[in-house]
């Protein structure tokens, strides 16, 4: 090979970059996130029901919150949501987090796993266990 040493150094750099995910994870535990619904309010419920099914909320909760934000803040529609006799306020802190009061074990669990940084907490101030 002509200029073999230079080419081989280049190829080693290529391989080091291409296989980066394979060796960078070695020795780090990759626990699967399990969002925790074990809070005093939820445990006290007879019927554990949210504003929508878990399947839907898993994929679309951000959209629900975004729509609520627009309706409440921009359109002034503060009507409540009634699910089987239980009333939910269209609010992150006064709605969702009344039951899901464990931000770090419920919200952050998946968000940090998936590398998602929602900007909810830029404005909403939440202290664990205060609600």
């Amino acid at each position: 090979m002509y200029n073999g040493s230079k080419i081989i150094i280049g190829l080693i750099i290529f391989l080091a970059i291409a296989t980066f995910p394979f060796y960078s994870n070695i020795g780090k535990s990759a626990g699967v996130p399990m969002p925790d619904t074990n809070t005093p309010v939820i445990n006290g419920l007879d019927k554990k029901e949210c504003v929508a099914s878990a399947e839907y909320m898993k994929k679309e909760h951000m959209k629900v919150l975004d729509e609520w934000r627009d309706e409440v803040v921009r359109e002034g529609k503060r009507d409540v949501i009634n699910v089987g006799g239980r009333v939910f306020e269209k609010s992150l802190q006064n709605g969702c987090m009344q039951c899901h009061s464990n931000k770090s074990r419920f919200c952050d669990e998946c968000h940090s796993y998936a590398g998602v940084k929602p900007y909810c907490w830029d404005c909403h101030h939440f202290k664990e266990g205060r609600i």
Partner: protein
Amino acid sequence: MGIFFSFFMVILLVLIAYFGIAAAGLHTLFGIIIPYAAFVTFCIGFLLKVIKWGRAPVPFHIPTTCGQQMTLPWINYSKLDNPSSTSGVIGRMILEVFCFRSLFRNLKTGLNNGNISYASDKWLWLAGLAFHYSFAVVLIRHLRFFLEPVPALINTIDSLDGFLQVGVPHFLLSGGVLLIAALYLFFRRTSNPQVRYISLPADYFPLFLIAGIALSGIIMRYISKVDIIKVKQLTVSLAELKGNAPEGIGTIFFIHLFLICTLLVYFPFSKLMHMGGIFLSPTRNLPNDSRIKRHINPWNPEVKVHTYEAYENDFREKMKGAGIPVEKE
């Protein structure tokens, strides 16, 4: 017809992935076996291709006349466009790789009152830059699916990419730019008759494929969402060489993944190898020092020479006898 052939090939790939998952349920095949096979093909194919190129001798430095060559010390010469030293070559290579210097020289040829005229045409350069840089950002962003815990740098890139904070999940600029740039490059190929004339399926196919990858990614993020936690479980297990495909990830994810696998397999055998090839381009990686250093062609056969000195030594007496002047008495 290259356009339709390439387009339907990509559609066919999408259908293969769709029916493979939605109808046949081949999660292990599409989630683990094909990605591993594609990655191995990519790496080995890339290495073999570069080694093959490396074995080809480069007989002589190829000066490209993009600037004044180094001559006399009092004549300014173009250090980056026509370098004569290794450092100049490194500078030229950096300009080429990071700024696409050659494309910046792109010209548009046209007829102007019956005369051929040339005008600067920077759109290809601009779209090329947008395409490659957004692709790079997309690629780096995707490390969040392979690394656990996600490094802070990846999170920062993600928030910078989505700094507009439009919609939820926030719109990432790089994905949109990638799709638009790929579509522009396609538009350029088809709208310019000369470029269209020389375009082959090998030119259209990667464009459609990458546009398909970008589009399926955008659909997956904003429209038909998938279970991202399960996706990351799959990708992390791939990175840890464990490979277990959890069920219940949306089909669109497997379409996205299958198109990427196709890109990886296609890569080493196609023009996309310019990623490695740019470093082995003789017009970019050789200094223009052909008047400073003597270059010997590596495949020159040994030539037996008979110098005049030796000739005269052999025939001096006979030459003298015939009255032919000699250099040495």
